[in-house]
């Protein structure tokens, strides 16, 4: 919500005080914190050490089960597993595909989200609400089902091919291609992006748009200079989360993508399970983590930049 007030006033029940040490507060937050630390923090740490060749202790069993395990030869571990992965042409192909699909899908999702949200903000018509409602529908469908439904729809006996067959056109089978992954990724990412961007747009007061019109602004300028800058934060949130989500996705590329190259999410599962190379699997997982962190850092940096600009910091 855009506020024109200069000082922050907090309505609601949190007292407007500076954060202070509170035993009760920390105690109450302990259960979920512990759960996350033990089952997210710990595995990540142990997994990271495993990827560097630490095979004792909690990594003992997996080291016995797995193949092609590299054991550490320095105090800090070994880069052998990482070297394996980076020299694996399969991985490099996957990395390329993953980045390509992520960037393309994110851009398309944001463009669609912007188009629908801006349209809904400027022209309050029935079509606008219908578009928004449609865009949110995928939220209601579990990912596994979405992936399979899209597979059957665009597949060999799917609707698309059958439809064009009526006109004698042999439409290509889209499944097992990168395009299908892009379609599936867009389909599942739209709801969150629309919810974010549309709420950002709706929060812009009418007066700000009217004032621009009064100053003589044509629609393009209103969109570019007023609407988009004011909705910048939700747009960036939407873009970051969409990108991170697609980057590490598994089910969509599994059902819709080719066997090779595939997205890194699928490859991680392949290496861990079928190929029984857990160490290399974890190396890939950390590479994906790194990429996701990069996106997250971009998001935080842009947040800080815009907070500085608007004078909040």
């Amino acid at each position, binding site marked *: 919500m*855009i*506020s*024109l*007030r*200069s000082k922050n006033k907090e309505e609601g029940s949190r007292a407007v005080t500076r954060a202070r040490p509170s035993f009760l507060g920390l105690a109450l937050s302990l259960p979920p914190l512990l759960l996350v630390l033990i089952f997210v923090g710990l595995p990540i740490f142990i997994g990271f050490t495993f990827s560097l060749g630490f095979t004792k202790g909690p990594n003992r069993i997996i080291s016995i089960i797995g193949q092609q395990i590299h054991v550490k030869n320095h105090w800090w571990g070994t880069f052998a597993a990482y070297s394996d992965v980076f020299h694996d042409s399969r991985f490099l192909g996957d990395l390329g595909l993953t980045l390509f699909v992520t960037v393309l899908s994110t851009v398309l999702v944001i463009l669609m989200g912007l188009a629908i949200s801006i349209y809904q903000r400027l022209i309050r018509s029935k079509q606008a609400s219908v578009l928004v409602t449609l865009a949110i529908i995928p939220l209601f469908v579990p990912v596994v089902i979405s992936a399979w439904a899209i597979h059957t729809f665009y597949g060999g006996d799917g609707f698309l091919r059958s439809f064009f067959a009526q006109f004698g056109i042999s439409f290509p089978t889209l499944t097992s291609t990168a395009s299908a992954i892009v379609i599936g990724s867009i389909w599942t990412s739209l709801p969150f992006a629309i919810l974010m961007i549309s709420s950002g747009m709706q929060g812009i*007061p009418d*007066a*700000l748009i*009217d*004032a*621009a*019109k*009064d*100053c*003589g*602004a*044509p629609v393009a*300028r209103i969109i570019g*200079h*007023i609407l988009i*800058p*004011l909705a*910048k934060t939700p747009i960036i949130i939407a873009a970051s989360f969409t990108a991170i989500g697609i980057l590490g996705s598994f089910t969509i590329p599994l059902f819709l993508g080719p066997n090779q190259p595939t997205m890194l999410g699928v490859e991680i599962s392949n290496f861990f399970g079928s190929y029984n190379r857990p160490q290399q699997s974890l190396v890939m997982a950390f590479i994906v983590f790194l990429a996701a962190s990069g996106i997250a850092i971009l998001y935080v940096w842009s947040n800080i930049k815009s907070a500085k*600009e*608007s*004078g*909040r910091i």
Partner: protein
Amino acid sequence: MNTKDDMGLELRGLNKILGGRVIIDDLDLSVAKGEMVSLLGPSGCGKTTTLRMIAGFLPVDSGQIMVAGRDVTALGPDKRPSAMVFQNYALWPHMTASKNVAFPLKIKGLSKIEIKEKVEAALELVNLLHHKDSRPGQISGGEQQRVALARALVQEPDILLLDEPLSNLDAKLREKVREDIRELQRRLGITTVIVTHDQEEALSISDRVAVMNSGRIEQFSTPQDLYRQPQTEYVATFIGSLNRFEGNLQDGQIHGGTDVIGIRPEDLTIANEPLEGSHPGIVELVIPRGHFFEVVVRRQDGLFRAFTNENVPTFGEHVHVKIKKALRYQNGKLVA
């Protein structure tokens, strides 16, 4: 026949229906160039709707709007030669004061140097040059309003529209801002229309005031005329205080009847002894109002409110109230 030079704003036969209700009913208004007028009335009277139609945000159902002699009825707000200062100022929070003011000039395509000059001149006009790089969130409400004003003035509009300009300011600030606006408007000579529900505001700075009721203008005159010669009962009760009685006036006495009598508080005299045609009564309230007193006297079937500052009576005293001058209304209209 008015020449183009005389015309500030002309509204002819405006009509607007919203949600099945008639909001504006056959409204006419003629504002001279350089004149400052107010649209005054309670909420729901249609004054804001009228302003928005002048600005172009609301299309008219029928009628014409002429600004500086040009018919602008079919134009959108971006094409009209009007500039509006919104009630909550509507400054863009992500832009500095300078950028806010520069916005309309960028659209016109002026050069960077020209823009810088005009922006600084406009901010200088409202005494805010020192805040040119501040953001709206960093300055006070009154300062925000001045930036909004600068943004409107920098467009060199044919007509300036102000929507409830003083309602968000505190009392002390209001007087000062009122006078600043008046002084600025006189200096620049821009035709200005103000929308307000506050009669003190309207009466103190306008050349003429249009008192509105249910989508029509009941009277459009100078503040003095509105006060002294309110043409309708509605205007008489809306402007200033009024002692209102139903009945006829004969020899200074109120009798039963079909007319409506309105008496301004300063047209009542309070005396200790009966005067010719006076009414007896008991003092119920004595309210100090600064340099005068408001005295409420209860008489047999109603109250008199009078203003006086000599021989001020006390609570419970028996006094006699004489009517010096009265306004007579038949069917809501003033009769001589």
